[in-house]
């Protein structure tokens, strides 16, 4: 099915741009991810081809890079400290405009210099961190020294990684027939709703040769959306309805079982 689709792409590209021999042809299986009552995460399929000419095959110099950036959010990062033997939240730092989801995937491991030079994603210039700190607005609160700031930076990445919301990999892109690629991207059930950006780069000889971007949305639908927006727009009615349901179930439960006991 996927292969047929890609071949269709070949034909289209072939007829439109016959002179270009290298082309990043891509597709995706969905433009929207719906959060409904059964939502427990989703796999996003991204696929494409290195070359528009299907007889050509990928050499070791060409790489594919897939980047998915979720909607921005403000987060509070809190550190626990021991007070009289108790582990309590102490210092807190607020990071503004950090992506709620970040995924970076490539066919081979990319150097940080390469990513920094090409300004791809949120990669930090110095180390193997994923965020370009200079672009972040940060409310440092009581945190003053550089060492502690570094600690908070890496904790931000780490906690996001632990929640499967940040990821950097170099082994998730599958190459088929030397020319086609396919990747299943894990969208966990905790992802924020909003617009996601997918950026694809075809890299040849450490140079970005082609780029392609598109968006997809993560949206709540059906009863999930109805309940969520109702709770925000009419909080009093929402609380009241939830209460009435509890009252009805509580009351009828007692009545039904009372009959059971009499029998």
């Amino acid at each position, binding site marked *: 099915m996927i292969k047929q689709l890609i071949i269709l792409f070949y034909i289209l590209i072939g007829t439109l741009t016959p002179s270009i021999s290298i082309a990043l042809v891509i597709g995706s299986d969905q433009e929207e991810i719906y959060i409904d009552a059964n939502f427990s995460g989703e796999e996003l399929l991204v696929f494409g081809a290195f070359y528009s000419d299907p007889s050509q095959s990928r050499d070791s110099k060409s790489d594919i890079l897939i980047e998915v950036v979720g909607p921005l959010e403000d987060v509070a990062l809190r550190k626990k400290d021991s007070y009289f033997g108790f582990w309590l939240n102490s210092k807190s730092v607020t990071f503004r405009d950090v992506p709620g989801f970040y995924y970076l995937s490539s066919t081979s491991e990319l150097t940080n210099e390469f990513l920094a030079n090409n300004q791809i994603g949120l990669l930090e210039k110095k180390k193997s961190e994923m965020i370009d700190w200079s672009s972040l607005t940060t409310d440092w609160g009581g945190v003053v020294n550089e060492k502690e700031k570094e600690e908070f930076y890496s904790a931000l990445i780490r906690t996001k990684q632990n929640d499967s919301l940040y990821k950097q990999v170099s082994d998730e892109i599958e190459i088929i027939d030397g020319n086609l690629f396919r990747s299943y991207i894990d969208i966990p059930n905790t992802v924020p709703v909003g617009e996601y950006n997918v950026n694809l780069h075809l890299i040849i000889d450490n140079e970005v040769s082609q780029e392609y971007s598109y968006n997809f949305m993560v949206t709540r639908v059906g009863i999930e959306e109805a309940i969520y927006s109702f709770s925000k727009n009419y909080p009093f009615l929402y609380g009241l309805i939830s209460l009435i349901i509890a009252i009805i179930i509580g009351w009828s439960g*007692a009545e039904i079982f009372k009959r059971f006991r009499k029998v």
Partner: protein
Amino acid sequence: MSIYLPIAELSVNIFLLLSLGGVVGFLSGMFGLGGGFLMTPLLIFIGIPTNVAVATSANQIVASSISGTLGHWRQGLVDFKMGGVLLIGAFFGSILGVWIFSKLVAIGQIDTVISILYFTLLTGIGLSMLIESSKVIRDRIRRKSVKRKIHYHNWAHRLPFKVRFYKSKLYISIIPPIIIGFVIGILSATMGIGGAFILIPAMIYFLGMPTSKVIGTSLFQIIFITAIVTILHATTTFALDAVLAFFLVLSSVIGAQVGVLAANKLRGEEIRALLAIIVLGVATKIALDLLVEPNEIFNLSVIRLVF
């Protein structure tokens, strides 16, 4: 099979939810308690955010206390006047409680405060139940019967604004019940509990109410206080999850009825000792979470989405 909770914003296994509600309901039916003091920490254990756990637990208690009140009401064991006076205090207490709650959420200390409150509360309940039930078991073995005073006279009877409570055969100041209601209101709003295990002894020892009327009156009062807390949380902290509440209410109401049936077949002291052990177990888990160095000393919370 899992279900996505729209306010908690995560998906949980539906059978886990139903069995949690069922077990807490069973215990609450068996012991005649609302079960909020177990529901909230257990919800937090399975990964529900603290604020959602508290708000939703209050909603669930409304259902279980309605079931309980009906039975006592039919037997004429509810002092509505006393319940009403307690509620005046509880109303203002819960407003203050929700205010404290949202301040604690804002400064990021809600989890810690909830843990400490729960640890204190559960240890207190667990130990007193364990001591009391073991004493009864011991006395039963020695075939002793314990005599109790019917009426207590203390400072509560010397305050102004005295009112006659016919049902409870009391002539006392309304100040102590209002204060008791106020304290319960704060606890209910911050912890997602009905507060029966504090309310009942307070009504017996401070107000001198007859034991027979205490349970029905406290249940009646708890319906309203948890209803107020539910609405306050829905409108101010936006943490009430109606989907979570629905599944908990459904399973806990069924569990509670089964619990009532089971209670008739078992001896009171043994089940109380059993509950005491469960309560102490939960308290220990909370204490360990506070005392053992966590694997990850940082925690992240989303303040807002940027559009």
